[in-house]
């Protein structure tokens, strides 16, 4: 695109405006306030989330372990007709353990990345 130099000079001369005198100061004030409040709420939220996930993991792990012990008795009690593969419950437990490990690792990595950033 060919540049029209006289038009460029004319527009730069006519349209360039200056901000009010206190622009930078009030903007820096807004930025400082925004960054302070962001840092405060962000860390609180992250801490809470991590604690909730960790507590849920421990709770579910214990629950699964407890349920896993009398599992055969429960199956007899309900008199299930559905024949499940023998590795079925083991696979569920393995999946949940892997899921929670990946979830927690992801949270730890995100938190570390955020701290570095």
């Amino acid at each position, binding site marked *: *695109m*060919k540049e*029209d*130099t*006289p*038009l*460029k000079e*004319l*527009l*730069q*001369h*006519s*349209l*360039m*405006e*200056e*901000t*009010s005198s206190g*622009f*930078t100061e*009030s*903007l*820096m004030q*807004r*930025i400082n306030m*925004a*960054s302070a409040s*962001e840092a405060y709420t962000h860390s609180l939220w992250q801490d809470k989330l991590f604690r909730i996930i960790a507590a849920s993991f421990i709770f579910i792990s214990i629950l699964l372990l407890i349920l896993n012990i009398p599992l055969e008795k429960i199956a007899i009690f309900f008199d299930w007709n559905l024949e499940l593969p023998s590795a079925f419950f083991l696979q569920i437990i393995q999946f949940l353990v892997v899921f929670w490990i990946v979830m927690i690792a992801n949270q730890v990595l995100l938190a570390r990345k955020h701290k570095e*950033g």
Partner: protein
Amino acid sequence: MYTLLINTYKNKVFSLAYAIVSNREDAEEIAQDAFVKAFRGLSSFKERSSFSTWMYRIVVNTALNKKKLKKWIIVEETDQIIQDEPFGFDSLTAYLKSDDQKKFIRMALNALHEQEKLCLTLFYLNELSVKEIREITGLSESNIKVLLLRGRKHLYEQLKKLLKSEVKNLI
């Protein structure tokens, strides 16, 4: 550090916002909001484009949101881009005083279509290339060239019309 960036870009950012919303108070608010948004998003700035292009994109989006103009209309490319000769803007405004020149240019610019006005501002005032304007607006390069061509033509016509009526009023 960020103060340095603000001082470097504040006038250009403010002028761009002012060209879009045509109101000093709103333009200053938009400029401030854009700087705050840019500060928050600095960590996500990937340097795929220059800082100025990224900053102007934030300004344009903030200003358009304020004006509730979210859609870009794709223009028909009926105009020939090859007719790219300069108009006689300098001879048209040469006899005007600096303040009058500013007044008439702004009036003529405000009479243009939104997209033409924005493309002219980004190209001539903010000194962005057609490629950079494409990054900001999402329009195709040929569309932007057509808008620039039409914008210049319309600006010249508007200015001529305004000056003619001013001369008539004086007589």
